[in-house]
């Protein structure tokens, strides 16, 4: 068993891309992802001077976005490992830039001219970009995850929130799964022993993309989903993007105030749920940092220790 874990660690090295939100506002996501990775033999290494992925300036200056993405890809290329993101928007943004740079020779030449002159870097197009959840689903696999489950989560009913940039657009991701009927997160939830709850507007956008432009519109978009999940009496929402979390957890109290409702819906990052199932202590998964406390949810788990 030990050898197998070591082998898979050697074959599963990734550079972790944190982006803007994770290292400041979603440390619980980062901690739980690292813990889960360690437990499953997935090696993650770091590059301290990654910057923003470039996504925020795409609407302002598309070429500038490509340059910022290429700078990060160039740093990753130096490491020689594929890039793993925790944020779905970072994943979309870096994947798209990567495709364009790999496929368009003229663009690649232009980007490298500017990148080398301005910041002394070059990107030759040799890096693969993927999402942490995709690695769990496609590389580790639900079977291997199910084999390592220590705690009994069968009393939990959680609602998956896929978020938009995890599956779309398929023009850059390929048809990894049907964006109108994705299954990967449901399956990953079921692999932990918890039940995946179905609800209205399951694929709806969190609204985070317009938060900076019009807060009221963004909050109204999030409110609908909180409402629909509460209607199914789910124990929590489970998601895989720190910006979706900003909307559903960070802004939950504001939403409650604006819409005169009470949700108190715990929002878990998938690695937190998985970590609990793998028998990792809640504190080690950053559960204390969850703004909407998940104490009741944790109590429902039979951790098999007491």
């Amino acid at each position: 068993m030990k050898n197998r874990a070591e082998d898979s660690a050697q074959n599963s090295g990734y550079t972790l891309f944190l982006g803007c939100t994770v290292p400041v506002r979603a440390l619980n996501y980062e901690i739980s992802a690292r813990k889960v990775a360690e437990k499953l033999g997935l090696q993650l290494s770091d590059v301290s001077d990654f910057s923003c992925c470039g996504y925020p300036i795409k609407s302002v200056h598309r070429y500038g976005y490509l340059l910022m993405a290429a700078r990060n890809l160039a740093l990753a290329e130096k490491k020689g490992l594929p890039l793993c993101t925790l944020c779905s928007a970072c994943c979309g943004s870096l994947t798209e830039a990567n495709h364009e740079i790999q496929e368009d020779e003229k663009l690649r030449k232009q980007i490298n001219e500017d990148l080398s002159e301005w910041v002394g870097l070059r990107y030759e197009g040799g890096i693969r970009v993927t999402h942490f959840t995709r690695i769990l689903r496609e590389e580790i696999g639900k079977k291997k995850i199910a084999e390592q489950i220590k705690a009994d989560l069968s009393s939990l009913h959680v609602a998956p929130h896929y978020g938009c940039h995890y599956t779309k657009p398929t023009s850059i991701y390929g048809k990894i799964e049907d964006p109108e009927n994705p299954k990967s997160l449901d399956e990953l939830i079921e692999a932990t022993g918890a039940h995946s709850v179905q609800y209205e507007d399951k694929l709806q956008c969190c609204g985070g993309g317009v938060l900076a432009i019009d807060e009221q519109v963004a909050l109204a978009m999030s409110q609908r989903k909180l409402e629909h999940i509460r209607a199914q009496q789910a124990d929590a929402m489970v998601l895989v993007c720190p910006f979706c979390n900003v909307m559903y957890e960070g802004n939950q109290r504001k939403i409650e105030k604006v819409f005169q409702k009470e949700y108190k819906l715990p929002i878990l990052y998938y690695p937190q749920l998985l970590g609990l199932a793998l028998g990792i202590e809640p504190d080690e998964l950053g559960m204390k940092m969850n703004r909407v406390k998940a104490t009741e949810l944790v109590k429902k788990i039979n951790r098999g220790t007491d």
Partner: protein
Amino acid sequence: MIDSKTFDPNFKSLIASEPGGENIKKCFSCGTCTAGCPVREVTDRYNPRRIIRMAILGMKKEVLSSDFIWLCSSCYTCFERCPQNVKIPELMNAIKNIAVREGYLPSTMKSQLDLLASFGRLLEVTDFENEKRKELHLPLVQGRTEDVKKILKKLGFHREEQSRG
């Protein structure tokens, strides 16, 4: 009322020559985009079919100076469903890129550019954050990323005096 004399017939070609806007002329206004739009569900200020129609008619100033072009949440629902592959979120970005060049940069986007130029990220990683990371046994994150400032400066989005408080 719309006055067709004010239309700029070249507007759609200008958009079509912008990366992301290439397929605008293929739109036949079926409305699939608007029907499935999550922003449209909470506000009628955003209506992608209407925006594309206005752009094709040549309502350049009305489109570029509007706040509604900034309301696309980039969820890509319409991108996947559009029968004509108009790539609406990318088309909206193309229009926004043109709007910025014409001087219509929303103040919130300006603030984001300033944050990126100052910190290389939208959120500053201060000593406090790194101290917390150390306590949690997480690797330190470089607070400032000067490269991003250089890139934004070269693109004309940042002047040196802005960064000196």
